């Protein structure tokens, strides 16, 4: 017999097996999910959830697809949070801290309460990546925010109304496009292809009898 625990979905009590995630426990309870369920594996941030274990002072946040149920867990899902996403043209933005001032000025109103970091479902140092963004250190902001799944939990706890995941997103795009070193071999290859350098080789492969390609494939040299 599987061991059962009591959980409270939006306040209502259900008895569910102890080895389920919050998401599969909801399904076990009979919910057919539409909202709050995307990848089912910790990548998309659709399943942000807030819970409290009865008796605990602390309110916790998690991803429902990534978190095992516990006895006396009070659960509310947060399938949507009104984040602010500014619209910008990546080709025209300025690549210094003025861009943050322009697009997400509220980050300068951070009071340093650390609620964002404490609530992050990915365990990221959110307050720190916001601090990097304030300073225009986009490379560090990108690095620190890289694992963000944009679930919005941090923003739901922020007294300054900051949309942290969007700030991280902007920093990563700036870093990827402008700050990361360019790639010579990539540029060369694109030119060679445009120049038609491989046309003959490819054309030959288009015509080759399957048996000959099989031979090529089965005897190809494999880089160590």
């Amino acid at each position, binding site marked *: 017999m599987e061991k059962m625990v009591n959980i409270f979905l939006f306040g209502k009590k259900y008895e569910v097996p102890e*080895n389920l*995630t919050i998401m*599969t426990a909801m*399904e*076990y*309870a*009979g*919910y*057919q*999910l*539409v*909202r709050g369920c*995307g*990848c*089912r*594996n*910790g*990548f*998309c941030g*659709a399943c942000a959830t807030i819970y409290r274990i009865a008796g605990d002072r602390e309110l916790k946040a998690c991803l429902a697809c*990534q978190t*095992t149920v516990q006895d006396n867990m009070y659960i509310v899902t947060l399938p949507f949070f009104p984040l602010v*996403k500014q*619209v910008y*043209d*990546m080709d025209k933005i300025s690549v210094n801290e003025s861009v943050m001032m322009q697009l997400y000025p509220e980050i300068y109103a951070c009071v340093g309460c650390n609620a964002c970091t404490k609530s992050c479902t990915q365990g990221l140092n959110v307050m720190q990546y916001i601090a990097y963004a304030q300073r225009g250190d986009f490379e560090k902001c*990108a690095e620190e925010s*890289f*694992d963000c799944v944009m679930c919005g939990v941090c923003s739901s706890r922020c007294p300054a109304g900051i949309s942290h995941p969007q700030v991280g*997103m902007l920093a*990563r*795009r*700036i*870093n*990827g*496009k402008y700050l*990361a*070193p360019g*790639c*010579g*071999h*990539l*540029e060369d*290859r*694109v030119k060679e*292809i445009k120049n038609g350098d*491989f046309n003959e*080789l*490819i054309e030959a*492969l*288009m015509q080759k009898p*399957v048996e000959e*390609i*099989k031979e*090529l*494939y*089965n005897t*190809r*040299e494999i*880089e160590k």
Partner: protein
Amino acid sequence: MYSEKYQASLAAVEAARAKNIAMEPQRMTAQQKEELLATYHPDYKTNEFSVLQIGPNKGDKVPHELAEMLQAHSRISADSVDLSAPDYETDVLVIGGGGAGTSAAIEAHRAGAKVMIVTKLRMGDANTMMAEGGIQAADKPNDSPAIHFVDAFGGGHFAAKRELLAKLVCDAPEAIQWLSELGVEFDKEADGTMVTTHGGGTSRKRMHAAKDYSGAEIMRTLRDEVLNLQIPVVDFTAAIELILDENGQAAGAVLMNMETKELLVAKAKTVIIATGGAGRMHYQGFPTSNHYGATADGLVLGYRAGAKLLYAETLQYHPTGAAHPEQIFGALVTEKVRSLGAKLVNKNGEVFMHPLETRDVTAASIIRECSTRENGIETGNGTAVWLDTPMIEAIGGEGTIEKRIPAMMRMFEKYGIDIRKEPILVYPTLHYQNGGLDITVDGMTTNVKNLFVAGEAVGGIHGKNRLMGNSLLDIIVFGRNAGIHAAQTAKTATVGKLSLDHVAAFEKEIAAAGIQTEAVSPKLLPNYARKADK
């Protein structure tokens, strides 16, 4: 931490580790591979397939679960939808907000077309978001599009449509450049050289990655760009039927709000199906690595409108799905774990194959180890083999796992397993739909005009099996391509009177063939809600 019942086997794995690291396992010969596949690969189990009785692929075999959806009733009756006053009118209608759909939308927009995206869940709730390992492109000096072609053609059992594959490999470097210019962060050396690794079946190290969030990094950047371009996105809205015009050309779709069930009509000059894969169909009862909405909808939509399928009988079972613990059963353990040096080991601590054979061969080999050879480890959910992750740290140095595959480390850490110190248990999981709708090189279906397809819903780019890293590549290359051509075609397309006659005709075919079915399709979502009576 593993419970008592795993300890004896774990000890065997640990004892053999040093020897196993040093050993270079033999690769299989072409003949060995063929025999292995024919005996153990799920695609070869004839009793798991049905013959289609109606539609453009009548007479072909597909998995039972797909046959049921392809030959099911429509969710609407053709005369119950008012087509005279469309809720949306656009040049290009993109169905599906994953990587292929968003790439297509961005390019169609840039080409000057009016575009909109409809998507079943949220934009980015998609298989693209989940890809960990990386994206292939032959951009290193020791590599070339021709070598990439041979790898992919062989990996796909020499069945790819060559003109599609040639486009895939030749446009690959440009696709990487396009993503970089959008701001996607690839792993690079200090001088800008791309960090590239092998994937199963590659002969050159051409796998580009963004840590082990490659797909997420691509997807969130594309999503951000769609929002920047202010392309309208209608989320939680599924396409449930294509609309044709009186001349049989694609001209829109009937949409359904997933929450309110309200029906809506979108009229368009061209339509792009970018609905992705089918893992949630759970073919042959396999668990899956796919997102919640991967239910082969695009194949059903296209099929009912008369579009042909290619290789719909071939699925990819990823060799390494998580087999333990229960909470992550079926979830993907990225191939990169093996690229970085971890080997597959049976319950006796023996390495039983080369870890970087193609996926189908590796999956079949694991199934053999767990079935007739009886060398699997019992997990309670079936049997499994070890993937010896601590080898990675021994080979690449301490910290390699945290640096290169942090998402993997985190996934197991939650359940008390430190993959730097302990191996993990794996078994094949349903991962990728190799087949799909048949297209020409400009992305249009071969037999329904103005209907384009991109991404995992396409069949034929890879043949009958796909190499890791070639799918993220195809959604960008063929997503962009479909967007460009759909926009171009829309410029001159004239749309006649809208019609759902094909839906009515399909119902008649079902009846005429004597198919008895209660099923309706597309499936839209799997039903995991436990029945009250269970």
